């Protein structure tokens, strides 16, 4: 009798395992990437005296964004590996801000593929990604200026023989003076802390 009860409980346990929903079973590993380099947190990026062009063909200098938080990400449009995820992560950070904060926060998505990512190409990219938003700028510049900016951000990148790029996966938040205040390295990272930093910055304006 005892055996029967045990058998019944065992079978009931098996039959009750039917509650399935969207469920991930994966380890938390990352695509191989160039590790981000060191930075000088007290060195404002606004010292960089370079001209950039966005996907609306408007030119600007980084200092034009003084007095507002800026999110910076470096990517390239032809990437078929991690850049789409990196851009989505940037959008996740921006989306974590409420509407009022979004209106005060600039996003610079800067391409290191200066050969292919012209303003026209970047415009198509922004439109397809539904990120042709007023505060979003998909950016190109002369290669030397892109390299200098990458160095200041600690973003490493290197063109490979097939025309693609190995690069760091890094999202950076600049404070209102252009200093690096938060770096989020890797893909699919939590964005709450970076969003709180931006919120705190805007409150203190």
């Amino acid at each position, binding site marked *: 009798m005892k055996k029967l009860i045990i058998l019944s409980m065992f079978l009931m346990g098996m039959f009750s395992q039917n509650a399935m929903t969207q469920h991930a079973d994966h380890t938390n590993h990352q695509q191989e990437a160039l590790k981000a380099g060191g930075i000088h947190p007290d060195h404002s990026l606004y010292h960089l005296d370079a001209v950039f062009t966005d996907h609306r063909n408007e030119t600007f200098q980084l200092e034009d964004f003084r007095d507002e938080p800026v999110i910076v990400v470096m990517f390239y449009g032809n990437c078929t590996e991690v850049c*789409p995820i990196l851009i989505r992560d940037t959008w996740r950070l921006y989306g974590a801000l409420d509407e009022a904060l979004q209106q005060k926060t600039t996003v610079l998505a800067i391409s290191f593929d200066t050969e292919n990512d012209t303003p026209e190409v970047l415009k198509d990219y922004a439109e397809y990604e539904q990120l042709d938003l007023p505060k979003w700028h998909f950016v190109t510049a002369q290669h030397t200026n892109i390299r200098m900016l990458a160095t200041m951000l600690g973003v490493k990148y290197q063109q490979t023989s097939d025309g693609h790029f190995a690069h760091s996966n890094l999202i950076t938040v600049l404070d209102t003076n252009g200093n690096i205040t938060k770096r989020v390295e890797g893909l699919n990272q939590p964005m709450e802390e970076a969003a709180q930093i931006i919120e705190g910055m805007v409150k203190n304006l």
Partner: protein
Amino acid sequence: MKIRKIILIIFGWLISISAIAAPPDTLVVKVMGTSDDARFEPVIIQVQPGDVIRFEVVEGLHTVTAYHPDNRRPLRIPNSASSFDSGMLNAGDRWSLLIEEQGVFDYFCLPHEKLGHAGRIISGTEYITPNYEDTLLPRAVLKTIKKAQENF
């Protein structure tokens, strides 16, 4: 004799319970390739509402992402269905998706979308063929879905 009777009653009861609480079918879609060869196998899968699809990543870095405004893409799943996005998946990862509604669900892989890495779920038999706007998708995606639909 009495014990046999009890055994029969318990088994009868278990069988009736299992009929009510039977788990849904679980179907598998393999996620293959690393670049130009990135693909879902099969590209089109037919399920019944309540079924679960388990995506198993064999190689590469991929996502399973619904064509839905929440993912900054045009709507290509039933209006009543919720958007879905697996997040980044690597080789060896598995991700399960419960399909509850009837209809046609189009989805893509975020890194390889431009290379045509997309798939379609057809849920149920009573669904209405959707009138999705094709011009909003990359040509490679349309090619993948059209070719698979022809061979389906």
